[in-house]
């Protein structure tokens, strides 16, 4: 891509400074929205752009905003900066290096849904990022970009940061809201969804950092322009976090619809020591294991196509696995993660991840039998579809697809 639209600091290194951001058109979109557009017009433009949630679910952003219950006030916007999926490290770069574009996105979203308070929920590990954003928010207040009666209108807005304290589950939007209410981060029963009843029981939009960072572009340059990037079903740019056994891991901003091959071989420089690629996890540790066939490598990374080759895009956290990686070992790692992060609310997840952890440890230690692999598969299948949030389901993805697609790796480890 010629021009970075999200990772703009790569083209304009000082864009984290307010005067530099403004000199490049920063906060024009927000001013334009507040002074010249009806909130519903803003939502309509975002809807028309086809922007889909970048946190993993790919839900249409404008549609989510339009679900806000207008009979129940006040409204809130919460930015999900809990970035915790193993393999995902894009939101941190955006907030650290291009903070104002993200904050402008928060502000526009707040205006669109009539919220006068917005919170940024950051994972506790992002303590320095939160302090950094606090400084940026203070600069915006001093410049009259946040506060009372903005741009001479009746609209007022304040943005606050809020730090979590170490819990993957708080990336799930209802668990995040529980945590923001000062409770343990355990998911709520849905419906009602947050646009009906969210923070403190009030209508709330929860959007991912990268999603919100797209918004100023859409308002400033228009939905039609935005749709020229990416694909028909998945418009726009996307930051792909590339990690694992590649030569150049890192964040790469590319149009949605770029192939896995281009990301891994052109941008990532290929596999370490030029070894054969074995499998791809496209959505971090929550992914199914895609067998890295030519067909899979040539698949466009958008919200539809990876499903045809046994994957899902999710948060586009592409973990690359080469032939040195034993899948039974890998499954032990992912299961251990989910066992640690299960919040304990739903029995199938709490107990299931515990048993899968025991079984995968035993398999990886070479102390298991073939029957243990069958038991592992069966436990995973029994978790699926029986939990309030997706964590339970996520914990089974690598297990089920690992056993189905890489059975030899398990057989080699058992007696």
């Amino acid at each position, binding site marked *: 891509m010629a021009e970075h639209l999200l990772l703009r600091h790569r083209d304009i290194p000082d864009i984290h400074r307010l005067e530099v951001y403004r000199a490049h058109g920063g906060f024009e979109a927000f001013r334009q929205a507040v002074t010249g557009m009806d909130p519903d017009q803003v939502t309509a433009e975002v809807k028309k752009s086809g922007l889909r949630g970048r946190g993993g679910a790919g839900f249409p952003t404008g549609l989510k905003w339009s679900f806000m219950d207008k009979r129940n006030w006040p409204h809130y916007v919460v930015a999900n900066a809990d*970035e915790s999926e*193993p393999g995902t*490290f894009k939101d941190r770069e955006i907030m650290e290096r291009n903070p104002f574009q993200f904050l402008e996105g928060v502000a526009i979203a707040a205006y669109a849904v009539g919220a006068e308070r917005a919170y940024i929920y950051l994972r*506790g590990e992002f303590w*320095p990022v939160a302090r950094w954003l606090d400084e940026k928010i203070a600069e915006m207040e001093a410049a009259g970009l946040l506060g009372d009666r903005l741009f001479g209108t009746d609209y007022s807005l304040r943005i606050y940061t*809020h730090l979590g304290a170490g819990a993957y589950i708080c990336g799930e939007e209802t668990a995040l809201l529980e945590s923001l209410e*000062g*409770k343990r981060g355990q998911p709520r029963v849905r419906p009602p969804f947050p646009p009906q009843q969210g923070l403190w029981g009030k209508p709330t939009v929860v959007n991912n950092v990268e999603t919100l960072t797209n918004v100023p572009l859409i308002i400033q340059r228009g939905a039609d322009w935005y749709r020229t990037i990416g694909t028909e079903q998945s418009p726009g740019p996307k930051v792909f*976090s590339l990690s694992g056994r590649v030569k150049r891991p890192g964040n790469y901003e590319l149009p949605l619809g770029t192939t896995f091959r281009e990301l891994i071989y052109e941008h990532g420089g290929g596999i370490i020591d030029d070894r054969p690629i074995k499998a791809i996890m496209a959505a971090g540790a929550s992914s199914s294991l895609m067998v890295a066939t030519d067909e899979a490598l040539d698949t466009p990374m958008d919200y539809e196509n990876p499903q045809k080759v046994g994957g899902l895009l999710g948060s586009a956290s592409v973990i690359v696995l080469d032939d040195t990686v034993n899948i039974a070992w890998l499954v032990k790692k992912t299961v251990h993660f989910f066992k640690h992060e299960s919040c304990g609310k739903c029995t199938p997840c709490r107990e299931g991840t515990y048993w899968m952890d025991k079984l995968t440890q035993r398999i990886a230690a070479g102390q298991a039998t073939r029957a243990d692999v069958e038991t592992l598969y069966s436990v995973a299948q029994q978790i699926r579809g029986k939990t309030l949030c997706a964590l339970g389901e996520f914990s089974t993805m690598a297990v089920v697809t690992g056993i189905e697609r890489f059975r030899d790796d398990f057989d080699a480890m058992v007696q």
Partner: protein
Amino acid sequence: MNAFYEQHRDEIEAILAKYPPEHKRSAMLPLLYLVQREFGGHIPPEGMRIVAEILDVSVTEVDGVVGFYTLFHDRPGGRYRIQVCTDLPCALRGAEKFLHDLEDALGIKAGETTPDGLISLEEVMCIAACDKAPVFQVQTPEGLTYHENMDLEKALALVESWRQAQASTPAAEE
């Protein structure tokens, strides 16, 4: 209100001001960070009672929150908690070996604290720096810092700098 509140009134009021007064319970996590800092890196029962009083909730509810989140500690640890990520993407780039080497060099296992109380070594889940493995964060009572693209030499140099800082300011700890 309690003596702790009186002592830290400005800071506590600034935290409470971020939330509508009728939802002050939302200040739970920030207040626990404050208490953890003031108690030198952990939250004892006394600290939970302080937060419970400020927020008008039971101590049991505060305890439940402390137990849920990994960055809150209900017992003392080292002044510096080295938290090494060994999750899948880091493990694919040598994080497990890095942790083992660090264990050997420090003479403690993950989950243990050095006898001088300076360092605790911990194994943690993904901290969103997968492209810069090996990576660890250092949690102190005051906050948290990231250390990326680490190797044993760099990690030990960091430890040495803490030892020297500790030795040169023996009474400045509290």
